[in-house]
């Protein structure tokens, strides 16, 4: 496949692997966090860990949008569908996120709630136009990548006067989460970040500069293809070896320093910062999520249906918080692979194949027994 195969070339991967092997200092350990689930998925799916020396360790970060969605937020969506009788539209991977009372959107759907999987915000608008007598709510989740399409839908609905459409806004911000990971007392033992791919196409590389400047952590923005990831790891190893902490861009074919200004303006026009937002695993993080601006209040499902967010504590045995910070590995969690499996996820990291635990469960389990 053109434009894809070029980035999945096994021979080139070996070359980069040789360079990493040669340049990584055997007396050092390199603990690198790939923030995004897309990178986690690529590392797992292509078995990239096998290409790295033992002292270069990849730590899976929290950049999986469905994984970080807390129980209380899913509860809100289920409540809208069950008690207010709305048609709830959502992206497919949100369907399995665990909620209260042993529910998920998928189980609520099986119990009769009208919950529909869609592929784009345009589909949600279409559902609203086709069902003028019903309230249609779009559960808007995701990082900066999925925010602009939501902004487009909100503006369209406002312009067209689609009165039966609103959004339940759970859009979150990448840099805020990275701050939350780094701003732990006593510091974290991370030597660098593989920076987001798609998120960075929107926000650019500039927002990562404080992580290099203030926290002294190298960041290399990388694409989601396996060769991108390998190259970024090599670049991080080099920064660590040189004692540099810079924001470098491996993904130059899509990311600039400024990012997509048009998309940023659109998002800014429609959304504003929330004071705080609760993340599964990271807890309550200041200024880490978005809500609709007052001008669009009529399209805000939280206001329209007056449903407040009620925080629900995660399962006590769940180690997601430590895993998301790179302090623990999935296999060090007591309930990993027993109580908590991809079929019955307890913690956030087991929900989507991009989550650290699910990725390890699905693609890496054999290593424990090897």
């Amino acid at each position, binding site marked *: *496949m053109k434009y*894809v195969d070029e980035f*999945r070339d*096994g021979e080139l*991967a*070996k070359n980069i*692997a040789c360079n990493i092997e040669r340049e990584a200092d055997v007396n050092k350990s390199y603990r690198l966090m790939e923030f995004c689930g897309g990178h986690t998925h690529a590392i*797992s*799916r*292509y*078995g*990239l*860990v*096998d*290409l790295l020396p033992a002292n270069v360790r990849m730590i899976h970060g929290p950049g999986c949008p469905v994984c970080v969605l807390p129980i209380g937020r899913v509860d809100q969506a289920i409540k809208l569908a069950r008690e207010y009788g709305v048609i709830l539209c959502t992206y*497919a*991977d949100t*369907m*399995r996120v665990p909620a209260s009372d042993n529910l998920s959107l*998928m189980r609520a759907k099986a119990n009769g709630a009208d919950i529909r*999987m869609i*592929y784009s915000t345009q*589909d949600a608008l279409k559902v609203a136009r086709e069902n003028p007598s019903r309230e249609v709510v779009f559960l808007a989740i995701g990082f900066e990548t999925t925010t602009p399409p939501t902004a487009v839908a909100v503006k369209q609905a406002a312009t067209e006067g689609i009165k039966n459409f609103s959004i339940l806004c759970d859009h979150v911000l990448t840099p805020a989460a990275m701050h939350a990971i780094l701003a732990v007392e006593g510091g974290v033992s991370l030597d660098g970040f593989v920076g987001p791919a798609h998120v960075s196409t929107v926000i650019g590389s500039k927002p990562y500069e404080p992580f290099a400047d203030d926290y002294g952590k190298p960041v290399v923005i990388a694409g989601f293809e*396996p060769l991108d990831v390998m190259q970024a790891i090599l670049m991080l190893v080099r920064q660590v070896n040189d004692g540099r902490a810079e924001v470098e861009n491996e993904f130059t074919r899509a990311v600039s320093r400024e990012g997509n200004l048009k998309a940023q303006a659109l998002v800014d026009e429609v959304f504003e910062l929330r004071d705080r937002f609760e993340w599964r695993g990271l807890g309550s993080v200041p200024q880490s999520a978005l809500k609709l601006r007052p001008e669009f209040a009529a399209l805000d499902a939280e206001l329209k249906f007056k449903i407040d967010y009620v925080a629900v504590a995660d399962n006590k045995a769940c180690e997601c918080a430590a895993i998301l910070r790179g302090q623990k590995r999935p296999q060090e969690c007591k309930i990993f692979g027993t109580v908590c*499996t*991809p*079929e019955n996820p307890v913690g956030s990291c087991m929900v989507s*194949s991009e989550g650290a635990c*699910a990725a390890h*469960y*699905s*693609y*890496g*389990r*054999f290593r424990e*027994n090897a």
Partner: protein
Amino acid sequence: MTSQVKPNYTRALDLKNGRVDMSHGSGGRAMAQLITELFAAAFNNEYLAQGNDGALLPAGNGRIVVATDSHVVSPLFFAGGDIGCLSVHGTINDVAVMGAKPMYLAASFILEEGFPLADLKRIVESMAKASRDACVPIVTGDTKVVERGKGDGVFITTTGVGVVSDGINLSGDLAEPGDKILLSGTIGDHGMAILSQREGLTFSAPIVSDTAALHGLIETMLSTGARLRVMRDPTRGGLATTLNEIAKQSGVGMMLHESAIKVNQPVEAACEFLGLDPLYVANEGKLIAICAQEDSQRLLEVMRGHSLGREASIIGEVLEDAHGFVQMTTKMGGRRVVDWLAGEQLPRIC
């Protein structure tokens, strides 16, 4: 005065504009007419013509295999086939991968009130053609009608009967460490043909379902005398799920080689676009065969000589592994587990 009434006259079924109504399932004259004018006319064979509650069949020589499969695919018509031929191929394949010669089929229809008779005719004719091409007659059947909104157009359940000759023993628990794993062709074609046709998902490149009856290919494979252990058609859940089933049944592990598993380009592109892994996408005209290592090359050549196995390849080996992991060496030179499918995000495909 002589009566104008013509004895035994019924107005012909309106196969152009008519629709299924509740009377077509009531057991009365309308149902009899639907059966005679549509089903019996299309499936026409001596066993069906017996017209009894069940078909009386000559016993075959050997052990009997029975398999049944319900079909609920949406959309009913898709590139490369429709629910009709799919329901014939699917059941023939389930019988054939047991090493049996498929002999007879039974077909049961659940029709939704309001379903256009013209569509039903198309489906029935497609089934009839598939069954004739495969030389496996549909010898008995049933029709029920459910109220509008209680079905999805048409559901078809087919049951197949076949006979296994002496000396042929295929079973999911017979894979042994050292055996080779063969695959008859590309993967993911059926599932992506269905998905790409669904509302809102159109790709310019045509993706055609691979739906086909595999018993001819299987007969050729069996005639080689190769020591075949397991045969299976990787339908729902795709190649990955089927191999995990076999690994579990046989208590073995497997090592696959990604570079040996072929995916048609449009399928690969569509999977890429939708974030799906072709290893988990359904096939309806492919088979997996596990055979003794020494016979694998010979078997592969025979498969490649058949029109349905032209792109066959040896995709991996059976290993000793108490955990029963199916693993894969990736094109990148790493290793990963090819796990069971978790959950189901895809719409109905078969």
